[in-house]
């Protein structure tokens, strides 16, 4: 497969502030959960980023860092506790009813678990057709033809429309999930760990399918994953999150070649490489401990407790994102 590599991200698009024509943009996005007992879980705490049309942004981090919450907030599944989301330049909070409806059609999501994200009592055709009905896009014969077209697009047969999800394997179910999200002709798709529940040989099928569809339909992706090697392969731009905040963001090649934040470095060095000779020669910076709880995070840099370099200032002052080179931002006092 030919791979699209001329990037829509121009070097120098200062991604935290203003990309030239952001397709979707988050400004100081916050999402807090109120827990029993009055404590506050800050899942997403002031995230700003933007994705240009046709781009793929990767969002990576360990489990519990708030990446899925960010994705869900972006398509409107959660109401943000603070900050704004701009879709094609318009704040989605200020949209009227028709505008809201249009936004929910254009922004779709592919879920992680292809087993729990499909209703077991609905046929595949109805699962895919539900969105078409809600948005009154097609009806009757046209609707059925559209469903067959979508099935074909994701590599399934039109006979599959009458079957139920349990008759399919994990990879096929994920294809159904993709067809469902494409049914309403979206322009922006949040892929929330779409491959992590799949087998290795099936993962590459799904990834290649997602990339083919992006080219065909000019889609914009937010690709959420903990799999850094897959993110490197798919994404033009990568944002690294830790405990609800961005610690580093850069163009994909740059981030992987010269990571600056100690957390990014540790994350990259933790990934095993399928090459024994290289693996033996590698210098690792192993992180100690686990991600601390996002309830009442420590003051200062959130990574300070696990950081091998942490200094006094790190435990006192919260570092801001600074642009180190064009398009490469990092939040660390010591860089």
């Amino acid at each position, binding site marked *: *497969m030919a*791979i699209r*590599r001329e990037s829509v991200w121009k070097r120098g698009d200062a991604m935290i502030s203003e990309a030239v024509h952001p397709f979707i943009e988050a400004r100081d996005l916050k999402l807090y959960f109120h827990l029993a007992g009055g404590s506050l879980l800050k899942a997403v705490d002031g995230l700003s980023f933007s994705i240009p049309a046709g781009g793929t942004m990767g969002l990576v981090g*360990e*489990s519990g860092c708030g990446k899925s919450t960010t994705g869900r907030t972006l398509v409107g599944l959660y109401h943000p506790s603070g900050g704004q989301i701009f879709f094609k330049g318009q704040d989605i909070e200020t949209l009227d009813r028709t505008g809201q409806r249009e936004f929910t059609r254009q922004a779709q999501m592919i879920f992680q678990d292809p087993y729990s994200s499909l209703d077991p009592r609905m046929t595949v055709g109805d699962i895919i057709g539900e969105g078409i009905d809600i948005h009154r896009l097609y009806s009757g014969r046209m609707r059925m033809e559209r469903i067959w077209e979508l099935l074909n697009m994701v590599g399934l047969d039109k006979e599959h429309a009458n079957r139920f999800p349990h008759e399919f*394997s994990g*990879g*096929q179910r994920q294809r159904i999930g993709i067809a469902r999200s494409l049914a309403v002709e979206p322009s922006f798709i949040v892929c929330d760990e779409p491959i992590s529940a799949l*087998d*290795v*040989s*099936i*993962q*590459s*099928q799904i*990834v*290649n399918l997602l990339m083919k569809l992006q080219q065909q339909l000019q889609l914009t992706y937010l690709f959420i994953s*903990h799999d*850094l*090697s*897959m993110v*490197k*392969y798919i994404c033009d731009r990568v944002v690294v999150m830790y405990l609800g905040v961005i610690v580093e963001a850069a163009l*994909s*090649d740059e981030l*992987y070649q010269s990571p600056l934040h100690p957390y990014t470095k*540790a*994350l*990259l*060095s*933790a*990934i*095993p*490489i*399928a*090459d*024994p000779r*290289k*693996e*033996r020669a590698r210098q*690792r910076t*192993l*992180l*100690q401990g*686990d*991600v601390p709880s996002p309830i009442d995070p420590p003051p200062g840099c959130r990574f300070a407790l696990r950081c091998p370099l942490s200094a006094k200032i790190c435990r006192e002052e919260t570092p801001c994102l600074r642009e180190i080179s064009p398009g490469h931002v990092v939040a660390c006092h010591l860089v």
Partner: protein
Amino acid sequence: MNNSETLLAIENLRVSFRTYGGSVRAVRGISMSIGTGECLAVVGESGCGKSVTAQTILKLIQGPSAEIDGSIRFEGQELLNLSEREMKAIRGSKIGMIFQDPMTSLDPTMQVGKQLVEGIREHYRRIRSKEARKRVVEVFGRVGIPEPERQLKRYSYEFSGGMRQRAAIAMAVVCHPKLLIADEPTTALDVTTQAQILGLIHNLKEEMGTAILLITHDMGVVSNMADRIAVFYAGQVVEVGEAEDIFYSPAHPYTVALLRSRPRLDLDRKQCLVSIPGTPPDLFAPPPGCAFAARCGSALEICRIKQPRAFELRKGHETACWLYHEKAGAKHGYPTRERLEEGRCHDF
């Protein structure tokens, strides 16, 4: 095989499960062996029979629905003939096991320390509780659980995922087993925790000389650990060899595709991702020929008709693929390392 002596030898193992829908042939004639202190990695996708093989070694798969055939010899003793009582003496003391999900392998209603003490006293009745507790503290320290004494009284749900897996490892090695079976020990964990746990298992192997059977689907995980690798597909071993053979001169088209189907962090982005078309075969009715033939770009006519035997490429490196038959190889060319590193897509 290294010149170490054989610790575990599996000979033509077959496991099938009777269900209402017919008989699932989960393991279809597997032979492999592990030497003392050696790490053998079993790599394959879900449903390829790797976990069933591991559980059969410990005779965790039993009962009327399972049919087991073949031979598993551990230190020269045939495990499949042992009674449940004799087996109990082996589980935990001579063969330890780490499961994928530490949440389900630890008892949530029992203090973590108590679970380990129970294990020790089961095997060594003469050891007093106090003595046993001392040993638990020592092994907790060894697997990197901070403040081991304080952790003894805690419950598994109070631990994080990484800590739980450490406790599960402690439980598996507390009696110094000769063989440790690790069934996807890091799949449920984050990358940073995965690196910690892999480092830990590696150290245990070096320090205690434990042989390890590491089961995983991730080639990256095994690259630093395995001495030898067995690649499983649809209940059979398709290729086995030294780690270097498998990584640098993979022979079976499935192994080649498996290595190329994951993007590598150390390679340039333009690398091509091979996707293997189709899905693994239905083990209710496995195909008569090679199980991979339907998905294989280099399949010959014979591949669909007759199962390939194992061809030895060099000492210790074997593959079950017709392409290596003397009559086939010259004509069709092997999927060699050169082709692999050229980085172009073959039509697998």
